[in-house]
């Protein structure tokens, strides 16, 4: 298919759907969580992304555990497990600091779920992976370094 036409159609489709959703005011009746934070996802640094999410300070915490490989042979698929032992954990946000767009996403934990998430992410180059947990109006963070060997020799 013609690439330009496809892009235009896709763009139009997204914009149209969004406008319709906002106009009816019923984006998601069952949705009790925040909307997709475009400015945070578009941020080119972790600091900017945090600012866009209104997170001004996050205390370092040993109660957040990031389980990720120290050395990832394939940066396209890096498995990451995050567990928070902080009581009242509401959400877990993940950042890969050296990616072009560091903000990977936020996982909202509803009351009744355990603060644990597993996700596989792309990591462009060796980078710190940062998890920010929101609990009872406060923010906590922890950082883990992941080295990426592009060559795949296991380094």
């Amino acid at each position, binding site marked *: 298919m013609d690439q330009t036409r496809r892009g235009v159609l896709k763009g139009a*489709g997204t914009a149209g759907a969004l406008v319709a959703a906002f106009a009816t005011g019923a984006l998601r009746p069952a949705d*009790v969580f925040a909307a997709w934070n475009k400015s945070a996802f578009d941020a080119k640094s972790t600091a900017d992304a945090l600012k866009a999410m209104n997170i001004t300070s996050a205390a370092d915490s040993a109660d957040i555990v990031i389980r990720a490989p120290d050395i990832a042979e394939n940066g396209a*698929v890096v498995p990451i497990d995050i567990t928070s032992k902080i009581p009242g954990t509401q959400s877990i946000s993940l950042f*890969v600091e050296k990616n072009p767009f560091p*903000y990977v996403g936020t*996982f909202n934990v509803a009351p009744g779920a355990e603060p*644990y998430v597993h*996700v*596989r992410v*792309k990591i462009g180059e060796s980078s710190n992976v940062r998890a920010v947990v929101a609990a009872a109006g406060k923010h906590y963070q922890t950082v883990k370094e992941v080295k990426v060997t592009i060559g795949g020799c296991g380094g």
Partner: protein
Amino acid sequence: MGDPMKIRARLQGDVADVRVLMAHPMETGQRKDPSGKVIPAHFIKEIRAELNGKPVFEAQISQAVSRNPVFAFRVKGAKAGDKLRITWEDNTGDKRTDEITVGG
């Protein structure tokens, strides 16, 4: 509408260990095809999970998530026979919902 998700929910006591595999290209919008044109971004933006109609897990994600994304999370207070429904929506407005029965 993409391919069906693979969802697995394993009960450990009253906690359901949920794993889900979604079929999606998760295109970043940074890559180029062989002729040098940028491949447009195409990625899942939002994921929602409901247990018997009650939201239990929700995520907003970006293109940094790997292609054919795998997620795992845990839901407390689940029992055999509960309906677990997972929905994703991507940046083109495409959606898919799949439902399984826990422990079934």
